[in-house]
């Protein structure tokens, strides 16, 4: 009975449809956003053009409006990197399992800490916040991973990421702003904590849940430093590390001799941009999916009944 009620209360409406009549404000906002649009897009657009034009063309015109002298050479070189596909595979595994793991820990903790006081809550909060500022550093972490037997295993890229306290606090804050009557009415109906969490709280928190999921997905997608310390097998390198290594630029004159054999000196700018796109496009595509949870809001019906 309670479930039916809850479902019928969930409708999707846009907040703007309740607006009053159109006004000149609309036009102003439109212009601002459109101008912003252009300055947001152009650098990205130009970077893409760099990745598909020849080196000579880039040298002549580093800033372009349209591509001339197109070549897919940079992408070809990257696709030929043997470990690139392994990199994608590893990163997808890390993102998939990592985000599930992150969200599980975050949601349980955020919800648990958002409800009433319980013995030890204050101390726990303090200890958790302390971890945002103080930590043991690389060497103790390395020894820990070693002791746990996670060396050179993909779980070493997932388990230590645990949960991001920052995000957890955001989620907790959101839970705290939900009206207590939500819980209470469900409790009166006899629901237990876990049921409340899953059936009531989560559906209503879809915007914040999807946002935090997005943040974690991006974080896991961009992780690379853990692999540098813990992963020896190059087939287990995440994508970002593969690309970083493939592209590390010659920094000092001495390195000339060392890197003389590598492909790095071919078309550095074009190569760098191609790598940027290969590493960014997949994760940028996640946002539009997440959007649908908040362009149209979720209506919370009357609490009573």
């Amino acid at each position: 009975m309670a479930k039916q009620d809850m479902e019928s209360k969930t409708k999707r409406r846009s907040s703007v449809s309740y607006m009053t009549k159109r006004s000149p404000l609309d036009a102003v906002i439109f212009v601002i956003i459109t101008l912003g649009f252009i300055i947001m897009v152009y650098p990205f657009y130009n970077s893409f053009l760099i990745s598909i034009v020849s080196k000579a063309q880039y040298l002549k015109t580093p800033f372009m409006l349209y591509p001339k002298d197109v070549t897919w050479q940079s992408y070809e070189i990257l696709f030929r990197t043997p470990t690139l596909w392994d990199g994608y595979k590893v990163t997808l595994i890390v993102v998939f399992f990592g985000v599930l793991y992150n969200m599980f820990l975050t949601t349980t903790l955020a919800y648990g800490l958002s409800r009433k006081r319980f013995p030890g809550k204050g101390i726990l909060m303090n200890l958790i916040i302390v971890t945002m500022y103080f930590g043991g550093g690389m060497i103790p972490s390395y020894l820990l991973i070693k002791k746990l037997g996670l060396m050179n295993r993909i779980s070493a890229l997932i388990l230590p990421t645990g949960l991001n306290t920052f995000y957890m606090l955001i989620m907790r804050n959101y839970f705290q702003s939900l009206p207590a009557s939500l819980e209470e009415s469900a409790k009166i109906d006899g629901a237990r904590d876990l049921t409340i969490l899953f059936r009531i709280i989560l559906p209503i928190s879809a915007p914040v849940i999807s946002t935090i999921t997005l943040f974690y997905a991006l974080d896991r997608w961009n992780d690379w430093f853990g692999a540098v310390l813990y992963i020896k097998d190059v087939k287990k390198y995440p994508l970002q590390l593969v690309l970083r290594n493939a592209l590390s630029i010659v920094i000092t004159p001495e390195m000339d001799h060392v890197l003389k054999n590598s492909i790095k000196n071919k078309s550095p700018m074009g190569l760098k941009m191609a790598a940027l796109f290969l590493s960014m496009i997949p994760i940028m595509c996640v946002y539009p999916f997440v959007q649908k949870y908040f362009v149209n809001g979720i209506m919370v019906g009357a609490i009573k009944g």
Partner: protein
Amino acid sequence: METGMISSSRSKTGRPKKSLVREIKANKHIYLLILPAVLFYLIFHYVPMYGVTLAFKKFNFVKGITGSKWVGLTNFKYIISEPEFWNAFKNTIIISFGKLIWGFPMPIILAILFSELRMNRYKKVAQTVFTFPNFLSWVIVAGFVRAIFADESGVYNALMTMLHLPQKSFLGNPKHFRSLLYLTGIWKGAGWGSIIYLATISSVDPTLYEAAAIDGAGRIRNIIHIKWPAIKSTVVLLLLLNIGGVMSAGFDQIFNLYNPTVYSTGDIIDTYVYRLSFERAPRFEVSVAVDTFKSVINFMLLFSADRFAKLIGERGIF
């Protein structure tokens, strides 16, 4: 473990021990719920926590951190004895607060603007596009910044010359460098930063808008009385967390945009330490000491800001 200590101190305040145990039993499902996360913190944060002592030790690679000998504040003295460090410290604070003043409100304003857009499809596309700069590294963005703001070849100064207006050096004049940081920081981060506020605004109960419409409220009213209260707690939270992050003023951005001519106003602790590690070869305990120094100050700032927030009636973090 914890409970033992709590019960012994709580009993001092006069609470009978029996009801505490009952409280714990009553809440056991919450304890169970948060147990996985607590275990995580314990294993991955508190077990390695002894590493913080490294800031006060001279590391012996064979004996490990616990076997290394204490050297008190030597590692700190190495760096804080340098006048350049204090210049960097000053800049770190100024730039971070500058970013709070100029940069922090932008995602909020942007989120509100977006929420006011009528065309759904355009809104979605625009929102997505505004997040693009977040995905470009500062290395790449710096190239564009130079193309616009370079003294001679930059678009801005070319425009100024055409309009017979005075030129400005953003990359070479310490007076203007920080403005450049704030501006480019906004450009890069506002879109992504607005996501959390958009999410919060979107979960506002539409019946509130209905009711407001019936009362004849205009859009500005809606923003002030419906949307703002909805995001206020998020704003406060993020503001507090940002205050707790003041000691890191944006290494990637500054590292890619700065040059020696603007060190006096643009050099921050992280960029200074980075340079130092190349020019000389400090022991790595020094960077641990610097991090500890930053963390202590950040923590104190957070704590104070939290206290203040509670004083003025906000929720706070602790």
